[in-house]
């Protein structure tokens, strides 16, 4: 026993010694790096780029752009790391943790992008893409502003994104239905569709974030924007507005009336497939998914595809004209030794011509560049959705990227429990409140 105790003590002593011997700061961007507009571009070397276009539908876009760029500059080679919506989060963090960030990397806005600025890992692009610059003027102002932190621009928006309810026009017409304009009308519409033996809304929540998207839109309808923004930050959060519970109760009602089967056991890909196969009347999706869910290869043809904004409850206390969504774009790594070349590539990526390719089928990603879309070549729903985004009073950021990771994780698992019926709205809000308080402490 004495021997074991001795060994344990020795092991703990060694471990503690090692612990205290650890360096205080690992290599990170130690000083802010600002882009130099006068820097000469050296068109040679390899440019590494982490994208979020890893899906079969989207991956050719960056491949084509890279090919065009390297044809213009034969001494340059482009190394693409193409990830999907799900995998890019883990990949990015692994690259950050190992100080291996590529020259150009994908970023969401909000807290996600803020992390790179906090750690001085993204180049301050204000001198080259700031609001008053030539390049900056080519973007939709709101999209550019979304990548602004403390009045400085750290990112280049590539496309706009927002969440809408896609629906099958033919099916609605057959049942004599019109797109609902209030939340209660949506529930009634679901009941009518269910009675006709059709799945009202195809909903897959295995990945947990699809429920977060519903919750985000309902929260901005029920909780004032100022309160929401205050609660995004653990230092000021309270999560005591009654609109939180109201929004989650509405979501539960939606689950009850509008979905069938077991959403928590269904992947979001299976859900969109059910909608594309005309097995469901509606599917809540991002505008960047419009072209994927209805195209010439799917049973649901583009002309049968319609959309509407998730309708707001009539007595909502929040902002009924807000839409959940945000632009998505790219940043330049502060550790890159080819910053001028990376900026040059981003300029090439955000020309009107490239924007038109990106906005048109089969990509259907509404370009953030002014004039970067050609309605004639685009899905009509994408064009109309872009107009709705422009008219929105507020763009509600995604809950899982705007909150602290621990708070976001509580939203994700808690909403799965809410969908599965093992947690009440009050319990979920209390859990989120507790997590936020724990992060603050």
């Amino acid at each position: 026993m004495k021997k074991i105790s001795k060994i344990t003590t020795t092991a703990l002593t060694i471990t503690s010694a090692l612990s205290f011997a650890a360096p205080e700061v690992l290599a990170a961007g130690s000083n802010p790096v600002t882009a130099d507009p006068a820097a000469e571009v050296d068109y040679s070397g390899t440019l590494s780029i982490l994208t979020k276009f890893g899906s079969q539908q989207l991956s050719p876009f960056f491949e084509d752009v890279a090919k065009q760029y390297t044809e213009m500059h034969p001494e340059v080679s482009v190394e693409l790391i193409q990830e999907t919506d799900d995998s890019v989060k883990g990949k990015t963090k692994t690259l950050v943790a190992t100080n291996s960030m590529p020259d150009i990397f994908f970023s969401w806005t909000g807290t996600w992008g803020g992390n790179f600025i906090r750690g001085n890992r993204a180049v301050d692009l204000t001198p080259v893409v700031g609001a008053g610059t030539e390049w900056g003027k080519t973007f939709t102002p709101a999209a550019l502003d979304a990548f602004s932190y403390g009045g400085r621009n750290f990112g280049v928006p590539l496309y706009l994104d927002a969440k809408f309810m896609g629906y099958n026009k033919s099916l609605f017409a057959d049942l004599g239905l019109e797109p609902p304009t209030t939340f209660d009308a949506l529930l009634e519409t679901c009941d009518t569709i269910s009675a006709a033996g059709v799945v009202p809304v195809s909903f897959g929540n295995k990945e947990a974030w699809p429920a977060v998207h519903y919750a985000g839109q309902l929260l901005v309808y029920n909780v004032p924007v100022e309160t929401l923004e205050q609660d995004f930050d653990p230092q000021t959060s309270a999560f005591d507005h009654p609109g939180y519970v109201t929004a989650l109760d509405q979501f539960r009602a939606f689950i009850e009336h509008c979905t069938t089967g077991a959403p928590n056991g269904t992947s979001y890909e299976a859900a969109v497939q059910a909608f594309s196969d005309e097995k469901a009347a509606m599917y809540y999706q991002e505008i960047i998914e419009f072209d994927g869910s209805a195209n010439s290869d799917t049973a649901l043809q583009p002309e049968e595809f319609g959309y509407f904004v998730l309708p707001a409850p009539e007595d909502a206390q929040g902002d009924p004209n807000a839409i959940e969504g945000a632009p998505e774009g790219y940043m330049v790594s502060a550790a890159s030794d080819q910053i001028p070349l990376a900026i040059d590539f981003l300029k090439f990526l955000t020309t009107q011509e490239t924007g038109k390719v990106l906005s048109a089928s089969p990509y259907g990603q509404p370009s953030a560049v002014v004039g970067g879309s050609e309605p004639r070549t685009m899905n009509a729903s994408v064009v109309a959705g872009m107009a709705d985004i422009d008219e929105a009073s507020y763009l509600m950021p995604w809950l899982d990227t705007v909150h602290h990771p621990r708070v976001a994780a509580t939203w994700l698992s808690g909403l799965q429990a809410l969908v599965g019926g093992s947690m009440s709205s009050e319990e979920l809000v209390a859990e989120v409140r507790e997590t936020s308080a724990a992060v603050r402490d």
Partner: protein
Amino acid sequence: MVPTDPHFPGAATSGGTSHEICRPALLRRALIRALSLRWVVLAVLVVGAFIYVPIIDNFRVSMTNRDIFTGEISQVGLENYQRLLDDPVVWRALLNNTLYAGLSIVFQVFGAFLLAAMIEGLKSRRIRNLCRAIYFVPSAISTTVTGLLFYFLYQPEVGLLDAGLTSIGLGALSRPWLALEDTAIFGIIAMSQWQGFGYSTLLFSIAIQKIPRELYDAAIMDGAGPVRRLFAITLPMSREMTGLMVIVTITGAFQVFNEIMVMTAGGPNNSSQVLGTWLYQQAFIQNEFGYGAAIAAVIFAVTMLTGALQVWYTSKRRVKL
């Protein structure tokens, strides 16, 4: 008489005292021994650098909190271990890992042992080979593919499982297996048994084949039936393989990751989290690398302890011919 060494013939040929004669031989022998150790040293260095140093480093990291974006590291002592105790998901994950290990031992060790004994008891060599091949096939499929296969098999509307249950009049048992907090982990464990069963059976078959036939012949002459022969000969003579399989199964159960990520990603509501997936979520999704390292330390401790206990037990009960 001066002792001669066949490896050093010159050591005992000169005259003088035995002490004087032996000294160069001993020195040479020590030198040879030291030289032969160079390969061991190399192996130890490689294993040390790639296994033991990271393990020790993991303990160091577990006593820190690191912000991966700023690179700032704060020393928190045993705070992450304290947090482990208060984290309900960790306990849930530990329970799931234990369930995984327990059920895997039942099916992949004892079940596979019985099946192997039955297969090896078959008279036809061709049928024996066929059976081994049939049971081994699932093990040749990648875990990710198997996970996807079972994900579809468990689907409530189009899955084969519920359709099969309904067709035999057990439709009342149909449910969305992976979508319910109570059943998700069992669905994954079942898939794992399906996949690992054949591999274990094959290993037990090999162990059983090595048992001398004379023992069985003698037992038959003594009037022992098949069940008696199984427990009196086959089981004790396969003890080392059984011990090895228990270690491999338990450590495997505590390292499970792919199946969970493919089928449920730990959900719904963290009900199917295991320590490996929770570690991944903490480290790579929530940026809590220190806390993730603390979870890794728990996994290491559990598997190390299990392995040590099993090795000790097996060595004590080893059957020598």
